[in-house]
């Protein structure tokens, strides 16, 4: 842990606070200010993307806690988002719940479902556990499509009735943005605290050495379940926001593919790092858009017949390739790069 040169802590209280120096305070305030005025300048397209990224960050932070901190691989994050999404939709559409009431319910229901799929973690680890959570990805959509299709809409899409929040027109991305970004910042703050609290240490202890953790007085299983619950509550929150963001809900949005990519995002970002998770989400989401944007013009450079083939395959090809290259050249994730930059800044003006 390095602080800017010349900064010392004289009390333990100071040592454990997040924002320490005046410089850090001003950066934080400036950052928040930029976020607050962003919609005034940005296009709807940009805001849509920002919203998606912010929602994904929430979900990915949840997975970050479970996989990055606690070391339990989960391939069910998408499905847990789906649980949140459908709960919110049903509570609001059929029971007329207000958003503020439906949201915690959605989080809790996702949390409970996550907890259930976390139960096998009592005895299994690693990829066996990943597969147990994978089953969530099959069982949950099955339940959504088959058990009460009259409520969930089965395989088809159901529209959500937009709630009114503080008079914001939530069908507009720029208004939606304030709701989403509020939760994202809150989640980041809470996650940061959780990670450095007793709970966070327990999680990492379990990740690094669950046997020793048990012997050192940690109820390992309880904490694993707690981790699963928190993770899927985050997913539930993200899923709820997702419904508002899209305005509709369909099982196809919460596929295994999504879940695997959430895992991908936190790996690219750097496991166990909160800013890393954010970077990972941004990296993947932006790259996704970027390759979509550049492939048509590139395909246009080729003669017609080849061009058509290239058009369809180029964006996945580029996407895969960029990530591979990234992994090969930055295998420790974006968080590592970030640490290096921070390290450099903190040592400044004295270099190595």
């Amino acid at each position: 842990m390095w602080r800017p040169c010349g900064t010392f802590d004289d009390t333990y209280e100071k040592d454990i606070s997040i924002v320490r120096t005046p410089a850090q305070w001003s950066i934080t305030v400036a950052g928040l200010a930029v976020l607050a005025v962003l919609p005034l300048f940005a296009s709807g397209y940009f805001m849509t993307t920002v919203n998606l990224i912010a929602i994904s960050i929430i979900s990915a932070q949840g997975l970050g806690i479970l996989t990055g901190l606690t070391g339990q691989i989960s391939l069910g994050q998408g499905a847990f988002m789906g649980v949140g999404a459908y709960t919110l939709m049903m509570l609001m559409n059929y029971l007329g719940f207000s958003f503020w009431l439906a949201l915690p319910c959605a989080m809790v229901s996702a949390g409970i479902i996550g907890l259930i799929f976390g139960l096998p973690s009592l005895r299994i680890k690693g990829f066996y556990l990943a597969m147990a959570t994978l089953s969530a990805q099959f069982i949950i959509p099955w339940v959504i499509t088959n058990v009460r299709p009259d409520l969930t809409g089965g395989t088809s899409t159901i529209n959500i009735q937009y709630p009114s929040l503080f008079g914001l027109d939530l069908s507009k991305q720029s208004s939606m943005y304030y709701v989403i970004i509020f939760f994202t910042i809150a989640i980041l703050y809470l996650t940061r605290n959780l990670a450095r609290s007793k709970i966070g240490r327990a999680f990492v202890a379990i990740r690094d050495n669950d046997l020793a953790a048990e012997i050192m007085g940690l109820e390992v299983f309880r904490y694993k379940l707690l981790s699963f619950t928190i993770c899927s509550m985050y997913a539930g929150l993200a899923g709820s926001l997702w419904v508002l963001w899209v305005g509709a809900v369909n099982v196809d949005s919460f596929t295994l593919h999504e879940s695997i990519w959430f895992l991908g995002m936190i790996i690219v970002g750097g496991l166990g790092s909160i800013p890393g998770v954010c970077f990972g989400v941004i990296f993947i989401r932006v790259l996704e858009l970027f390759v979509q944007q550049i492939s048509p013009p590139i395909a246009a450079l080729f003669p017609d017949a080849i061009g058509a083939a290239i058009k369809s395959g180029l964006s996945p090809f580029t996407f895969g390739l960029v990530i591979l290259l990234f992994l090969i050249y930055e295998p420790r994730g974006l968080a590592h790069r970030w640490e290096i930059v921070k390290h450099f800044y903190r040592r400044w003006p004295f270099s190595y």
Partner: protein
Amino acid sequence: AEKPASLSIALLGDLTGPYASVVGPMAPGAEDAVQYVNEELGGIDGVKLKLHVRDCTGKAALGLQQYAELIGSTPKPLFFGVPHTPTAEALREKIIRDDVIGFFPGSVPDLYPQGNSYSFYALYAEQSAVFIRWLRANWKEKRNPRVAIITWDQAYGRAMLTPEFFDYCKKMKVDIVAQELFGVRDLDLTTHMVRIRSKNPDWVIANNTGSGPLAILRAAKELGMKIKFANNVGGDWGTIRLDPELFEDSISVMHMASFDNTDHPGIKKVFSYLKKNKRGIKEQTAFYVLGWQYVLMIHKTVSDAVAKVGWDKLNTAAIKSEMNNLTNWEPLDGVVKITYTDKVRHSHWLRIYKIKGGKLVPPGGKLGGSEFVEAPDLTPLKFR
């Protein structure tokens, strides 16, 4: 009044990804049609069409982002063509809210087109109903015909299973004896077919495309079952060519003239573009023609609207009123036939085919000619 430099229209959908083989050809179709409009018809009153194609690869989130991009661009596209899939479903509300015309798959009952949106063709239930009507008309035996349904377990596959359809079958005295659903990636349908076999149906109908019908027929063949098979638009060229022998004598209900009908002037025109732009056999599907239909519809309605109100007053409302006035409109000399009204946003005109030697030909019998027929109206109750 001042003419715009060009007229933007958009096509947005899952051109690659799980639905590629179905909806993918719509993009080349629209591209070719835009070329046709711009080069042969001189655009709309001299204004060229500009087509923006976006591929959402099967992800609703990406679709939403791309929609936001397109709707925010200037000039704003006046039309949004969105072929099928959950992406389309998710975008529907947004497009209806925004002041543009949406060209949509309205064939899934819950997504019946509303507001400024229009559907591609008849509802899937109606397509099946056309078959049922044909079957009944040509049924010789005393007892009721027995029909089994087997279809994909997702929105598209299930779209034919509406209460209106079942009512219609009852009314027509056709017994639905089995109803099986299967997954898109199921390797083996023997199980389903065995269950169907035990119900002893005369016909098996589906609302599938691509590998779906193929898997059904292959499983039947393996079990040594002789089944008569009927399918909706999905049973078009793109599917049949995967294994023409297997499809022999199947029935297919579609909204367009067949690619086999090479004497048809419209089909000829389409083929000249397929050839010119080096499209392969894979593009010869209903959705390629749908691309044409979309662009030609824009050409027609915008031209009419401009003629009426002029370029400066051209707006969505003006175009919409033209759309609602399309009656028995037959672009490309009748490759398709369209009627939209204020209330009914899907066209009822369909044709029924039989597959003979890998070709789509009229099945003969009563109501089995080569003309477009009007499907029974099975518009979902709540949208009437």
